[in-house]
């Protein structure tokens, strides 16, 4: 499963990132924000219009906005079902 398919409110660990799907600047920005292999993330919010883009991801005590296209490059393993916390 990739990050964009994660159900709203559920947590996951990023298992792998296909950096070739991202332009270098985007890849660097994502890594700088800690969105990298091994990171623990929660899908917190989604955009409203057309295709529910972008996504807001909670990582640590931070919330990061990114687009579906970026999330698609990240393979995740679910750790918590929605509302489990």
């Amino acid at each position, binding site marked *: 499963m990739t990050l964009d398919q994660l159900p709203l409110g559920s947590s996951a660990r990023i298992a792998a990132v296909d950096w070739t799907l991202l*332009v270098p600047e985007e890849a660097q920005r994502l890594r*700088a924000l800690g969105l990298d292999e091994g990171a623990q993330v929660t899908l917190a919010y989604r*955009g409203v219009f057309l295709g529910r883009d*972008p996504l*807001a991801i909670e990582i*640590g005590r931070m919330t990061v*906005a990114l*687009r579906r296209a*970026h999330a698609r490059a990240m393979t995740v393993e679910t750790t918590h079902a929605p509302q489990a916390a």
Partner: protein
Amino acid sequence: MSRRPCVAALVGNPNAGKSALFNALTGARQKIANYPGVTVERKAGRMLLPNGEPVELVDLPGSYGLHATTSPDEEVTRRVVMGEQEGQARPDVLVIVLDSSNLEQHLVFAQEVLELGRPTVVALNMVDLAERDGLVLDPAALSAALGVPVIPTVAVRRRGLDDLAAAVAAARDAVVEQPLARPHVTLPERRMLAHEMAQGAILSETRKHRIHARMDRVLLHPWAGPPILFALLFVVFQAVFSWATPFADAIDAGFSAIGDWVRAEIPPSLARDLLTDGVIAGVGAVIVFLPQILILFFFILTMEATGYMARAAFLMDRLMAGVGLSGRSFIPLLSSFACAVPGIMSTRSITDPKDRLTTILIAPLMTCSARLPVYAVIIAAFIPNRMVGPVGLQGLVLFTLYVAGIIGAMVVALVLRRSVTRGAASGFIMELPKYQLPTVKDLALGLFQRAWVFLRRAGTMIFTVTVALWVLLNFPRAEPGQDQVNASIAGHIANGLAVVVEPIGFNRDIALALIPAMAAREVAVSSLATTYAVGAADEDQQGRQLGDQLKARWSLATALAFLAWFVFAPQCMSTIAVTRRETNGWKWPGFMLAYLFGLAYLFAGATYWTAVALGLG
């Protein structure tokens, strides 16, 4: 030999609260300029050490790393820290600013800075917000882990500032140690270490319900979020559009009164005319923008300081992505419906330089309030006041002109994104900062700085152009009995221009009106009134009389072409001046002038030829 003054620099991630700390440390004594060759702002101020010695403090742009820089802002930060930035002495002391509630993230960048082995102090900022979230930290433990002094601060409450100044003084005088011998630490290793240090610095952590999470649940709610945003934007738009009007009118009236007074006091002469119609009118043309700029920036600075701006961008991102922009472009473009000048100034919040440039270039296509007087006169004169189904025809035409501008802007954005401003867009990746109450002092300082930058940078140019236009319209002097405007340089230019605009249905009178309208679009109306010798006491009457004159002299096709022209024509020197200031050179305002005049000519032409073909010529 006298020692040069000590330089200290604030470095840190975006949203670490650097600017608030900078304002608290330097007060209002700040200097804002651009770094040479880039559009990145350099903010510097004077901070006093405990012994009274002044230190130049530089507020560096927020950055996520020194080695993999992804924006001009981050590149400037890297160069300043490394001592490679032109026009900036290498800082003697680095002050790393950390957000206390986001240590794990911010310590990654901090490690990179610390590895340089320079005299460094850490400001553990916003400790109050961390405590609000149930996180209590141990600065001593963090200091031991990092090997540099760690000072807890709350910039907005002025807590810890004296301790920080003392630490900066001590760091400067300390013997500089050699850089740490760990040059090849990888990012995952740094992240691991950051995690360990952050955990080690935590005294207690209770999982209190975080306030910002609760606010996001409402403000980013799929049903509630957008209506809240639109309600807020409606207020902003209303404010810029109508609250500013009485002030702008008062400023206009004030400068007219000064002009009248000078005319009454000084005997007629060319020098007097230069003073009244050139200098006083020129200063007035600059000041008149201040109400709109101040009102718009009051809202924008508040939205940025509270953290809502990032949420607004989040909500609007999908719509803007359609034309290759991001959610951050939405508010500058919306503001441009009132006036492109504050709209273009507000593009500073767009982090991606290509996105920002595209937004600046299409901002003049939003139908600003200065076009309304032109549209109103022409529509009233040529479009019959009757109903087409449920809507009035005049209103429909006005609406069409607005839509034409919006569609034009979307198409231009799409084209630019694939040509001139093409490039690996950073897309839309950003942190949603924590909600915070803005301080009045920071807001006031920000407003003052925006206003000052506008007056000094754009103002000087607007003033110069006003005076230059006056010269064009008043020299050479007319012979007795001859019309001054026709005899002037502008009159001769109009003769040449008339040949160029003849194919799109414009006569020489229009060509002549277009020249002074370079100052501002609405000048076209008064200038046509002068040409057709319409003299009336009040504006309404002038509009009606001018309308009658136009109807008698222009064909409907010409009138429609004239409207189409003003949808695109960049006839506003203030927009050009502010674009020059914001893009740091003549290249992009030049491009803007060329492409907008090109489009104006094309669309006015297309409108004219179509209308003539339909038998409206």
